[in-house]
């Protein structure tokens, strides 16, 4: 997705506001770690997808099985292409299957 013209970075935040993955410019790379994202994540609670236009760029946020994917972009981005990439890639982004743990000793 980072190969699409105008896409500047990606952040994947868990539903509790923790950073699962990030790919950003070096300046933002560290500061995003220190930010408390919980307020934003809580306010996104019932949102499936949002496409935001800012003065100097765009931000696309998409709900996934793991949390929210943030795509940081410049002002001119082929949005349809970017959304299509998300449609194709996101279904493969699934939580790792947890081992059955102690449950395996009990009958269903």
């Amino acid at each position: 997705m980072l190969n699409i013209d105008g896409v500047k970075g990606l952040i994947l935040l868990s539903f509790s506001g923790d950073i699962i993955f990030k790919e950003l410019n070096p300046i933002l790379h560290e500061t995003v770690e220190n930010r408390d994202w919980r307020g934003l994540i809580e306010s996104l609670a019932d949102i499936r997808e949002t496409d935001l236009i800012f003065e100097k760029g765009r931000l696309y946020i998409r709900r996934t099985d793991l949390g929210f994917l943030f795509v940081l972009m410049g002002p001119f981005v082929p949005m349809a292409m970017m959304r299509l990439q998300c449609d194709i890639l996101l279904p493969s982004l699934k939580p790792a299957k947890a081992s059955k743990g102690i449950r395996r000793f009990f009958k269903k």
Partner: protein
Amino acid sequence: MIKNVLLVDDEHEMLLALKEGFTRYRDSFAVHLASDGLQAVEKLKKSVFSLVVTDLKMPGMDGLELLAHIMEYYPDIPVIIITAYSTPEMEHLAREGGAVGYIAKPFLIEDLARRIMATLRRESEGGTLHNVSSGMFLQLIEMEQKTCTIRLEDKFSGKKGILFFHEGELLDARVNDLQGEDAACEIFAWEQVNLAIQNGCALREKRIHSEMQHLILETARRKDENINAEVSPSVLEEVKPFELDPPTLINSIRDKIQQNVGPASGLEDVYQDQSWDRLVFQLSGAGEFLTIGKMMLGYIDKGQTSDFILLPGENTTVISVNPKCPRDKLLQALSD
């Protein structure tokens, strides 16, 4: 009639917390925000407010200076002071200056809301009327020689105005920054109004010297000559969109979508809704943090029967659209 309450505080977080806390009272009053006294003075020129709640210590113009300004120019507007630096002397100064309430921080939002509601109730203690002809009613006030303050809302434009009567005599009128006879003529031109009557009149100075009958005739003449005709902005960028009156803003958004996207825009409704403010605040903060500047607009998909486009402002403007709408075209049109 929804009443306008102006909250003034230099602590942004405090303002937002109050605004959010007051959302459950939105059927009774609408909240407007100012970050200091000077901004409050500007807002007072642009709208009719029923109450001001102000902090005391602020940069530029502080709460006591704002209180003095309101007592001089808007003596009908009650003021409640909130402060984190409460002393008996400060309270004495505030009461002496004309404040109707004084609350020390920290306080419960519910307590302040109760105080606001009690103060606002006084505004309509003399009764409220809906869908009346302003000219007919005001002549009745004159005939009955009433002393009262009447707040009116034009059913068509949503504009608000205020008239001051002393023993049936019209002393003054105010619509936004218009005062005196010009404001009275504007109010008399409103054909259908909702109004609230408050017994008593805080104003003493007489600014209107013509007879009411004369002003009503003058209004009719102005209407005929179209002197007072207002030209609505045809496109959003001609004026700062979020400083428009809500009805004008909403109409200009509808026009813009109609002109740029056409009948297949999927547009369902345009309205203002404070319940989106928290989300907009959070998203705006994220944009600033990610160095892409101020949020201009956002498209929201909740997987419901409608999607939403949000325009940040003092109150968030919401455009509800069919999910099958031409999203990119709409966003392009609204962001141009």
